């Protein structure tokens, strides 16, 4: 009933969408792991990354790599700044105070963008090189698809090396498990938290480029949906767990694409409802997510 190339196309779509969700979910999960903060402003950093990338593509002759890398660096810095200005003063306050603050930060970033750049959507035109289509057997994909997946996998491999091989990375896992014990061991938690925000925000910026390239236009509220979906992905995987965020991201990407691609077209309007139904289902079976570590932290 479905041709093989069609199925292959859906798999490619699932992989690229899943890569984006996974990258955004990682940022949410590492911050949540340490601070127990659900950072609603995270998706907006994806938007900032996309705008920066567009500005570089339009106004400079920098190589494509720079249009991905520079926004990652800048947005990483923005993430650190947001933590320093908005979240750190609330350290020790009830979790709900930080949650509401993150909503406020999200609003500030969105409206700041509208005030300075207008609410008009802008076309995100990719350089010719990225649009080229390739055919390998039954699989057809664009250069952007290939670059997105390769970049996401590469970044996740780097992150895995970071949290298993470096002092700060191991400390990040220690902080996520027991913040007080980490402080007693002499770990400077402010430094570790800054790293978490820098890394998470940089990954969101990379995802912003992929998202913008995939949909061809950007606007100030574009971060909301991927932010929300990535949150679902993180919860499905077990929030706080980095492998969980990766797994949840790809699961959600595939589930969403397959839902739209293989079910009757009348149903595709229910795509987002399906995503949340999936979340409910996973939580019913595994209330703490698929890869939850089972370690509960005391207040």
């Amino acid at each position, binding site marked *: 009933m479905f041709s093989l190339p069609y199925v292959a196309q859906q798999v490619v779509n699932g992989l690229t969408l899943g890569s984006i969700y996974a990258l955004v979910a990682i940022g949410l999960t590492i911050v949540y792991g340490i601070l127990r903060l659900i950072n609603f402003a995270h998706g907006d950093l994806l938007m900032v990354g996309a705008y920066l990338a567009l500005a570089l593509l339009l106004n400079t002759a920098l190589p494509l790599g720079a249009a991905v890398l520079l926004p990652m660096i800048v947005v990483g810095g923005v993430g650190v700044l947001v933590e320093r200005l908005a979240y750190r003063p609330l350290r020790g306050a009830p979790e709900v105070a930080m949650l509401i603050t993150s909503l406020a930060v999200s609003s500030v970033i969105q409206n700041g963008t509208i005030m300075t750049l207008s609410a008009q959507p802008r076309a995100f035109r990719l350089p010719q090189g990225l649009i080229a289509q390739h055919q390998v057997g039954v699989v057809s994909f664009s250069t952007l698809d290939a670059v997105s997946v390769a970049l996401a996998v590469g970044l996740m491999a780097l992150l895995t090396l970071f949290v298993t091989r470096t002092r700060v990375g191991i*400390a990040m896992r220690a902080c996520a498990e027991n913040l*007080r*014990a980490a*402080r*007693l*061991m*002499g770990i400077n938690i402010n430094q570790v938290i800054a790293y978490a925000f820098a890394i998470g925000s940089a990954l969101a910026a990379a995802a912003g480029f992929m998202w913008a390239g995939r949909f061809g236009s950007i606007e100030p509220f574009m971060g909301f949906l991927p932010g929300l979906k990535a949150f679902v992905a993180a919860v499905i995987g077990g929030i706080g767990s980095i492998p969980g965020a990766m797994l949840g991201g790809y699961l959600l990407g595939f589930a969403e694409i397959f839902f739209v691609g293989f079910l009757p077209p009348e149903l595709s309007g229910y795509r987002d409802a399906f995503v949340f139904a999936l979340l409910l289902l996973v939580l019913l079976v595994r209330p703490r997510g698929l890869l939850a*570590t089972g370690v509960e932290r005391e207040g």
Partner: protein
Amino acid sequence: MLLEVENLSVYYDSIQALKGISLQVDSGELVTIVGSNGAGKTTTLLTISGILRPRRGTVCFQGQDITRLAPHEIVRRGISHCPEGRQIFTGLTVLENLLMGAYHRQDRDQMARDLVWVQDLFPVLAARRRQLAGTLSGGEQQMLAIARALMSRPKVLLLDEPSLGLAPMLVDTIFEVIQQLRAQGVTILLVEQNAYQALRIADRAYVLETGVIKLSGPVQELARNEEVKKAYLGG
């Protein structure tokens, strides 16, 4: 004096947990704080480590006021804290836990020697370096917690209830290690509910009752005190 706590008052919201306590620890000493549950023993250690902030009073270390320093600064100065309930990082390997204990250190050679040192103290850890700490038994986890705290090469080791929840044989092992450490010149401030064992190995003791120091002195004196006998040594 190496460590000097003066007139420390600590509150949890409006409840006063420490009511102006003072204590000293001199270099090379093994000092213990005994007292029942809720007397303020853990609160005292957490305040020294900078996790809790006192409303009044000071903590001085090597003559410097450290009362307002961040916990990681306090570790850097030479105070290491082995917390109550072990609180090892169960999702990290044994080796990673030990490395976290040495987080601020840059002296790689000496660190490598200290890794050997703590694994000599606790040979079981050497055999399990690559294992996740959560897979260790309770006694092994306590040994890891002490070893981890030692990895910062502390000038003072704060030990909070190291015998809590351990089988009697393991309690003996832990107390033997504490004596061994003391013989190696590590200064120790030990908090214990097991007053019998603590008074047996310490030089001096403070008896803490509901946030107030009731008695203090050399352990031989305290062990003869009728009140102490009745309250903590089972008559």
